[in-house]
């Protein structure tokens, strides 16, 4: 057992750079096997029963809603009489709100395409996988990029009078500034929470916030000629 070694043993914990791991079992050390065990249940009947129960409750709720509220039905389609405002289904009203400010090629084609592409590529970027707090590493550089992006975006939205989208952007930007000035050792729990959030989280939260605000504004606060109306004053 005194042969000279014809290999070099390295130590590395980054599985993207060194995916292959070799274990050397020498005489003095012994290999220890760590087994992972987690309690599991059979899909049939335990999971299927819960699925059926969940769908049953859903069906009951929807049946009650269907008994209480009638689906809207207006007069027969008439190409010569345009209602004011003509609204898309509620899930497209966020886009229709943007269509009010930007030309169709931007609000109707560019923005939706960018949304779908960004959703698809989320899992393929390491920065989305690592999930370290956005401002915890490389703080100065990331702060610079953040300020340029946030200010540029808000100035752009205000220049086009898109205050409906600028306000949520501003709120998210303020939350990000609080996160930048917090750390995992901050005293308050909300600050620790914000400091731990990665970039993907911030982008998605901004998207969710904009989606809710724009859809709500398009649904409830828009009247004839897409003017601002208050839903409780009809």
């Amino acid at each position: 057992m005194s042969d000279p070694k014809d290999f070099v043993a390295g130590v590395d914990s980054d599985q993207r750079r060194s995916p292959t791991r070799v274990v050397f079992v020498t005489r003095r050390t012994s290999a220890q096997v760590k087994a992972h065990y987690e309690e599991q249940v059979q899909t049939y009947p335990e999971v299927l029963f819960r699925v059926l129960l969940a769908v049953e409750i859903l069906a009951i709720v929807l049946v009650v809603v269907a008994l209480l509220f009638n689906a809207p039905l207006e007069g027969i389609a008439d190409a010569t009489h345009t209602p004011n405002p003509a609204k898309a289904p509620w899930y497209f009203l966020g886009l229709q709100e943007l269509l009010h400010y930007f030309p169709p090629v931007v609000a109707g084609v560019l923005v939706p395409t960018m949304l779908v592409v960004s959703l698809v590529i989320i899992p393929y970027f390491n920065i989305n996988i690592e999930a370290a707090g956005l401002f915890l590493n490389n703080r100065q550089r990331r702060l610079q990029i953040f300020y340029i992006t946030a200010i540029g975006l808000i100035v752009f939205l205000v220049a086009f009078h898109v205050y409906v989208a600028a306000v949520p952007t501003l709120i998210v930007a303020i939350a990000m500034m609080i996160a930048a000035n917090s750390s995992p050792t901050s005293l308050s729990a909300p600050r620790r929470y914000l400091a731990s959030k990665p970039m993907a989280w911030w982008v998605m939260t901004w998207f969710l916030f904009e989606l809710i605000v724009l859809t709500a504004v398009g649904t409830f606060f828009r009247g004839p000629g897409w003017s601002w109306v208050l839903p409780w004053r009809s």
Partner: protein
Amino acid sequence: MPGKIDKILEQVEQSRVWRSIFRSGRGTSTLHNALAIQQSVFLHLFSTKVRKRMLSFSSTWYLGTLTLGTFFILIVTGVLLMLYYHPSVPQAYADMKDLQFVVSSGLFLRNLHRWSAQAMVFLVFAHMFKVFYRGAYRAPREFNWVIGVVLLLITLLLSYTGYLLPWDQLAYWAITVGSNISAAVPLVGSKIHFLLLGGNQVDANALLRFYVLHCLILPLAALLFVAVHFWRIRKDGGLYVHQSEPKKAGAVDETELVKEVQ
């Protein structure tokens, strides 16, 4: 009496015909339960076992399950509505009025279809955000996330094509607003617009096209992708469990030092 029914059931379940259909046989052992999943062409999309803590409501909110539930309700109510609906102008609108005032439970059927459709769109979005915030899109589940995005688009298209079918003012102008956007695509916009509507404006051709998309092409596409979506859950290692997520109380400790090799 219950004993007699049990006996009859047992005889049925042990009969040659029953066993030729359901091969897992009678019994409640782990093997029988596993076979009940494995031996069914539909259920074998799922894994035979699931981590116990994934059953808790907080880990998934059952959003994927509920989305599937709305989809089933929509298929059933949709097929029944098809029995009373002609995709032609102006008969389509007259059929809506018939559903409202003439057909037994017609109004209820249409209400259920409409509200389930709204619920499905909402649930698909909710499911997507829940999956994102849990980080369940990470490797090896990247591709299932992409399939999920495709299913989101199919759901939106299903809802959008169904929106035109009542042929009332609401439907007509919503589709006019929406389809005009497709005309804004650079270079090929007007061609896409024409292809979508079968003409230059929303008319009888558009109604027929939307009907075929809504009742045939899109549901088939949805079924196909849903099947892949479920199958990938199994193939990607089951429902996502985050390392830091607390185990359920009373669960067996996961790490055991098994053996020292000497």
